[in-house]
């Protein structure tokens, strides 16, 4: 009964002093909301990064790229690739017995700032999460087809955000937002043929198209730059195009076959756009519009028919007849030894560099952990200030209740019971503050998840308890106990009888 009544007394006291009590609880809750958010967001970033490293242990990219830049531009599609790696490297990797799978990756356009990444059918197939929406009649393992080059597969979150549903058509803009050379490619219209289920990774925030579609745009840009001498901002691309021009002659001849195939497609489905495109280029670019003319050239059609039997394989591996460049190659290796060997080999040769995704991501995560630590320090700083505030509130409460405590003493209620009451009050205040803060923090994360996911390109798990948060809970509860003990000491030192005498 005694302990029950002490608890009842505590509840009565908290109710009686609900103003100070609620302010204390709310202050702790606010600090904890901050801590929960910091923990969950950094955890989401790290988890997303680590998952990606498991999927693609090796990334091969252009020579001169840094490890971090390769990972950031391929896994997270943050920042643009700065150079190109030859498609031959991809072919070589694909043949390598140490490689389980290699995926070419080419980036050019974007839609509303979301990168359109050129990949192949294997990449989409191996993501293996199924489709939320899928165009009837298509083979899910061969979505990208040379007959309809500008097919797009949209990540789940991007589909949700921009309403890119099955059948939606859109044009990409060349270059990223803010790029001085950025311009819209009205002549290349993408059609959404599939929306992927969420893969809970950066893929949810991307738009995928075929590598050839990306090269088509690159070819276009290449000529476009020549004609205008555009300051594109993407100097590497421009320089490489100019540099490879002689080689390109060769390449163009070879490429014509594919262009013809594209020509077929364009004539069949985008006749008006194509004509317009042709007019436009002739008006503005004169001689350089050879690619456009090629599409309408009957000879090439014959030529294309000649290669018809080889169509599928040509599409699956079509880039050797195009500009032969990729942004990067994602590689699944047989084992860590293979990853290490391939990394060394492809880093030491001309024209490419390679990074062990796991190692690089560990470095990035370590860096993020530092950022988390800094954010955590701010959170703990806030929490410390709040706890000091709570302690001041407790002391004020004790001072205000001196008389009442003195009266309790006259009623035979001992210091121990009174101190116990103050201790329980403090513990309840900190506990409720923590509980409320954790609840608000996680529900806020749940509520703002779409916004956070979209802006950070992560798949936030709003109801996961992170280490920083668990630490915070323990620290706050222990600090609450210490505050309670200090409160008890204060009561023990007080001469409550003076209060009675003063009465």
């Amino acid at each position, binding site marked *: 009964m005694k302990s029950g009544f*002490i608890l009842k007394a505590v509840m009565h006291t908290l109710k009686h002093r609900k103003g100070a009590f609620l302010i204390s609880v709310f202050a702790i809750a606010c600090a904890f909301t901050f801590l929960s958010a910091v923990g969950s967001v950094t955890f989401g970033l790290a988890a997303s990064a680590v998952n990606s490293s498991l999927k693609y242990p090796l990334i091969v990219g252009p020579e001169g790229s840094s490890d971090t830049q390769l990972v950031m531009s391929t896994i997270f599609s943050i920042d643009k690739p700065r150079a190109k790696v030859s498609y031959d490297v991809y072919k070589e990797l694909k043949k390598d017995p140490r490689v389980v799978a290699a995926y070419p990756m080419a980036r050019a356009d974007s839609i509303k700032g979301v990168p359109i990444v050129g990949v192949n059918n294997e990449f989409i197939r191996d993501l293996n999460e199924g489709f939320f929406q899928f165009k009837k009649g298509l083979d899910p393992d061969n979505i990208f087809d040379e007959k309809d080059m500008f097919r797009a597969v949209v990540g789940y979150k991007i589909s949700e955000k921009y309403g890119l549903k099955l059948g939606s058509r859109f044009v990409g803009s060349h270059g990223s937002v803010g790029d001085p050379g950025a311009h819209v490619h009205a002549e290349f219209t993408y059609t959404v043929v599939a929306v992927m289920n969420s893969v809970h990774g950066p893929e949810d925030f991307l738009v995928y198209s075929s590598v050839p579609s990306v090269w088509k745009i690159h070819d276009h840009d290449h000529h476009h730059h020549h004609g205008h001498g555009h300051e594109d901002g993407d100097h590497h691309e421009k320089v490489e195009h100019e540099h490879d021009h002689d080689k390109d002659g060769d390449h163009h001849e070879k490429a014509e076959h594919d262009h013809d195939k594209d020509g077929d497609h364009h004539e069949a489905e985008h006749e008006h756009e194509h004509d317009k495109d042709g007019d436009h280029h002739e008006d503005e670019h004169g001689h350089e519009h050879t690619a456009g003319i090629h599409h309408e050239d009957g000879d090439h059609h014959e030529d294309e028919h000649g290669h018809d039997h080889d169509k599928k394989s040509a599409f699956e591996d079509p880039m050797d007849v195009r500009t032969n460049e990729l942004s990067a190659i994602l590689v699944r290796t047989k084992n860590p030894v293979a990853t290490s060997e391939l990394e060394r080999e492809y880093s030491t040769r001309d024209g490419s560099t390679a990074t062990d995704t796991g190692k690089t991501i560990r470095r990035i995560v370590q860096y993020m952990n530092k950022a988390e630590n800094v954010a955590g320090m701010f959170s703990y700083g806030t929490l410390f200030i709040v706890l000091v505030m709570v302690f001041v509130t407790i002391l004020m409460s004790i001072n205000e209740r001196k008389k009442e405590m003195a*009266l309790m003493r*006259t009623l035979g*209620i001992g210091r121990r019971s009174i101190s116990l009451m103050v201790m329980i009050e403090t513990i309840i205040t900190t506990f409720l503050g923590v509980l409320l803060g954790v609840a608000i923090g996680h529900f806020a994360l749940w509520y703002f998840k779409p916004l956070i996911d979209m802006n950070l390109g992560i798949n936030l798990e709003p109801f996961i308890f992170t280490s920083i948060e668990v630490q915070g809970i323990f620290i706050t509860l222990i600090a609450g106990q210490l505050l309670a003990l200090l409160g008890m000491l204060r009561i023990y030192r007080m001469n409550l*009888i003076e209060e009675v005498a003063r*009465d």
Partner: protein
Amino acid sequence: MNIEVKGISKSFESPDGSRVDVLKDVGFSLKKGAVLKLNGASGSGKSTLLNIISGLLLPDSGSVKMKGIEVNSLKESRRDSFRAENIGYIFQTFNLLSPFNVMENIYAPSAFAGTLKPGFKEKTVKILKEVGLEDHEKSMPFHLSVGQRQRVAVARVLFTEYPLILADEPTASLDRVSSETVLKSLLKCHDKGSIIIFASHDPLFDSLNPDMIFDLEKGGLL
């Protein structure tokens, strides 16, 4: 229960650093059901003596013996529990615990001491009726008038049936009706055998017919 107060002296330090003797060699003994009135002007040491008897304050010298126990030599926690079981204390004002309602204020000391007996709520209701507060069971102290609060304090004394009741100017700020209720309640306690030691200038309290009057200014029994 008898009470024996022997050679109690107490001095305090004054603001100028000198010691002021408030009580000097105070002594008396009371038997069960006795009533003692403390006389003396303000500052004569009435409250100090009551605090020493209750065990709230320790004397510089002397002893207070109740139930054969020297209360002032007990450890603080034992003194607290002894007080909770044996001594009811009524002050001029501020007798109630603000977070508790009227009923809870009445049985709080017993509840904290862990000595509540079954039927305590019925007993509380009955006592509240006796002091004219039957409609205020759930009222909070701040909803009550000064007179009503004092009646709750007296109801608490009636509830616990303390063998010793100390009252320090219990009716000083009360109206006639409330003062009469307080007095009636104390008389009831007296009838049940409680020792009552009170300090009051209220002539109404003469009807308590004190067995002894102790004049603190003169330093002896009258």
